[in-house]
């Protein structure tokens, strides 16, 4: 357990955001995860990102499936509605919720078991529909709640705590998302809050499906020397290729514009994501190049991180379907029912 119960009284000097809210108002219940769990760091980064975005907490909806990662939706945004559904099927719940109310900010939290095994189909189809949501995949290569079985993201040769090697090739959510046409693909590390927070902010603002795969080590079952999802392995093989900075809409852009290594992408709502190029030829708007780069670095044993791909021009699920801008839940019944006259006319056609 990494969070502690805090006193209800707020310290007067706590910084507030544009809504006058402190970070505390973006926190949730006390975590019940193991001490040192990567997921708690992700939760902390999310709290930071949501606070910095000045999002009214109740305008977010937290969606999750089943597993250690999915439990974390209880640990932030206590004022928001949260939905801890069934294993691997959070995308369907989020899709339905988004269909009904397109104005909420959907934060989906999942894990490698939830997303890459039991829920692989739903993940793929949510990407395909470009459901407007941030999809956070807390990836530790192991089933934690059932105590240490390999997951579909375990690398070949990575060993379980008992020394048994994994023999099946992994499913890489980043490559999967790139090949399926995802419009926002990022990878980060729970241990790098400085990188993770702006990525999460950009994901939350993206108009469409934003996949954020986060290596988030499991201290209880997959943090040993022979694991490739451990803190040490990730730090040793970490390669931040596209550091990002997220510039919200109303904040004045003060960064120097003559930085030739920077690439800016304007988001749907007018805010800006700015990349600094570390790899000189890396362009996060080129899907094929992103795919090739990740594959190439993987072959060298590197874990490529950063905002790897973004396409802000694609229409989301509602844009494709041509749904009315008003959330469907807000349409008055009078606008939905054709009335008795229309019915009487219709009856004439069935004669």
């Amino acid at each position: 357990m990494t969070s502690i119960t805090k006193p209800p009284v707020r310290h007067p000097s706590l910084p507030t955001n544009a809504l006058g809210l402190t970070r505390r108002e973006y926190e949730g219940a006390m975590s019940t995860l193991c001490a040192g769990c990567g997921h708690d760091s992700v939760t902390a980064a999310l709290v930071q990102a949501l606070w910095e975005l000045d999002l009214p907490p109740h305008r977010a909806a937290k969606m999750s499936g089943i597993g250690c990662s999915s439990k974390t939706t209880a640990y932030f945004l206590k004022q928001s509605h949260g939905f801890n559904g069934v294993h691997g099927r959070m995308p369907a719940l989020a899709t339905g919720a988004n269909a009904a109310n397109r104005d909420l900010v959907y934060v989906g939290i999942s894990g490698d078991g939830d997303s890459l095994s039991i829920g692989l189909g739903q993940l793929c189809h949510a990407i395909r529909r470009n459901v407007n949501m941030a999809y956070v995949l807390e990836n530790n290569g192991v089933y934690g709640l059932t105590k240490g079985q390999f997951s579909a993201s375990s690398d070949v040769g990575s060993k379980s705590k008992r020394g048994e090697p994994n023999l099946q090739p992994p499913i890489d959510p980043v490559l999967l998302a790139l090949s399926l046409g995802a419009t926002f693909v990022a990878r980060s590390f729970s241990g790098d809050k400085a990188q993770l927070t702006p990525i999460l902010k950009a994901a939350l603002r993206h108009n469409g499906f934003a996949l954020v795969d986060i290596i988030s080590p499991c201290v209880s079952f997959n943090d040993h020397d022979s694991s490739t999802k451990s803190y040490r392995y990730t730090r040793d093989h970490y390669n931040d290729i596209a550091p990002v900075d997220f510039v919200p809409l109303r904040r004045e852009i003060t960064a120097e514009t003559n930085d030739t290594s920077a690439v800016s992408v304007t988001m749907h709502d007018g805010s800006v994501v700015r990349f600094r190029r570390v790899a000189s030829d890396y362009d996060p708007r080129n899907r094929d190049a992103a795919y090739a780069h990740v594959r190439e670095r993987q072959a060298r044993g590197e874990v490529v991180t950063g905002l790897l791909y973004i396409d802000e021009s694609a229409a989301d699920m509602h844009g494709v379907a041509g749904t009315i801008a008003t959330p469907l839940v807000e349409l008055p019944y009078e606008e939905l029912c054709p009335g008795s006259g229309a019915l009487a006319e219709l009856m004439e056609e069935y004669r």
Partner: protein
Amino acid sequence: MSDQQPLSRINDFAFKMGTVNGTGSASANSLLMQAIFRMGIPVTGKNVFPSNIQGLPTWYEVRVSKDGYTARPAHVDLVVALNPETYAKDVAAVRPGGYLLYDSSWPLDDKLIREGITILGIPFGKMCVESFEGDRNRTLLRNIAYVGALAALLEIDMDIVGEMLKEKFAKKRALLDANFRAIRLGYDYAKANYSCPLPFHLERMDATKDSILLDGNSAAALGAVYAGATVGAWYPITPSTSLMEAFKEYCERFRIDPETKQRKYALIQAEDELAAAGMVIGAGWCGARSFTSTAGPGISLMSEFIGLAYYTEIPGVFFDIQRTGPSTGMPTRTQQGDLLSIAYLSHGDTKHIALFPANPEECFYLGAQAFDLAERFQTPVFVVSDLDIGMNDWMCRRFTWDDSYRPDRGKVLGADDLERMQRFSRYLDADGDGIAARTLPGVSPRGGYFTRGSGHTKHATYTEDSTEYQEVVDRLSRKFETAAKSVPGPEMHLQGGNGASAPIGLISLGGCHSAVLEAVDRLRSSGTSVDYMRVRAFPFAESVRAFVASHPHCYVVEQNRDGQLRTLLAIETGLARDSMSSILDYGGLPLTADRVVEGVLDGEQARAASRRPAASVASETRNLLLT
């Protein structure tokens, strides 16, 4: 209709066409049925079709009944045999003294020869080859040619047929002419070569002016539109697919913003039924009226999510258009095989509200009401239809709508309600009816709560404490008891006006209704006193139990092998299962009144036999053993 009835009958007979699917016979057949309907004569059409796109046998049965009986006929007076593959079966279906019409372009097949029936040959194929170009065209028009022949033989009003062709091909002038010519080919040949009309034929009536012809799936979709449903998620599966397709068509007509052309609905074709159920639940959680349509295999896949929605108390409407199971079963045949699984669908203690429409009219009204019940009780509600209701055109009364209707959204707290409250507890039973108030996401910072399928307290917090857990699931039981008082009660057809029960009670549901009603009339007119109760919803109203308890013996008529309604009645009423016998029909075709009458008479005979003195039964048994 028994075999002894004379064949000279006006507006009281049945005929069927045996064709090959994918040849255009379906539209010819519906044209026939609609023409009879427009003559003011009550008519029913049952399409018996294969799970196939082209090349397998298909039948269409038309029953004409001046008395308004709409059940499938047990016998037919005339068979149009156009599929050589099924000749033997088709000729056997003709009632003794009846007629067989075949395509005499080819020599009479031995299989079609049968004593005691009249065989009529018309060279449909040959005439169409001579008159039209192109193989596909000739095949399609051959069907229209037999419509013409039947118009002559049965006295279908040719003006009405002509008017319908004009409506159908209003924008396709060339097709209209060809169809007219094909109709005349059949009509003229029959007139010239046979004595028309046949002894059984049609005469104009005035019995359909308040009626429509519509299938149950379209009716259910219309119910969803009128109830204000905005989110539909589904996965294609026979026989439910046409429900969502109809919803789409109605929405394209009624739910497009006139200025922006944007849609006031969301229709999502899901990756599978699991996802479809999840989308319905996600949308219901957010406050939309959401629904899906599926069939048995889909219901099985949705079972996990249904348990979640039951326990987390989220509304959603699930149309189950039943087909024959188990497994893939016979996807294009009807059955009522999902009753037990739906009543208790999902793991753990779960019970669900289910409505049982008997015809398309009820698909519309109960379909709309399902959304009210789902929101009032914050739970999945099933509308349990079947292939016969869903996919066949039924004659039913015109639907009407009360414009003063407003949706029952149930207990939903708004921002103002929440401001006035000390603390919002999602699963707290404040009113003692088992229903806790809910909040919708995004409405108020005071309304947030965590929805979880894991153990939760009345405050929606996590628990593994026995008492806290039981408090919530016990309230769910109370909620179900409240629901029993709100769902549609049974429809009673009692024989005695003086309150006394008949010695026999018939119980049935759903698509069996028309056949049972007809059987009740026949039993009563032959001196057997029966009361009839049609169950319309689960949980059962108290009056359902009272009916079973007040009849010395009941027959439960249903379309499945294991007597699922009977089992459900025994479980839920606590009354002895032995006080009810089953009359079952589960071969995949719509029920006939004959099956019900036989079931009751056979059952009564068996019961009478078992009432004989024990000594006599014992001696009979001994005799049997000796021989």
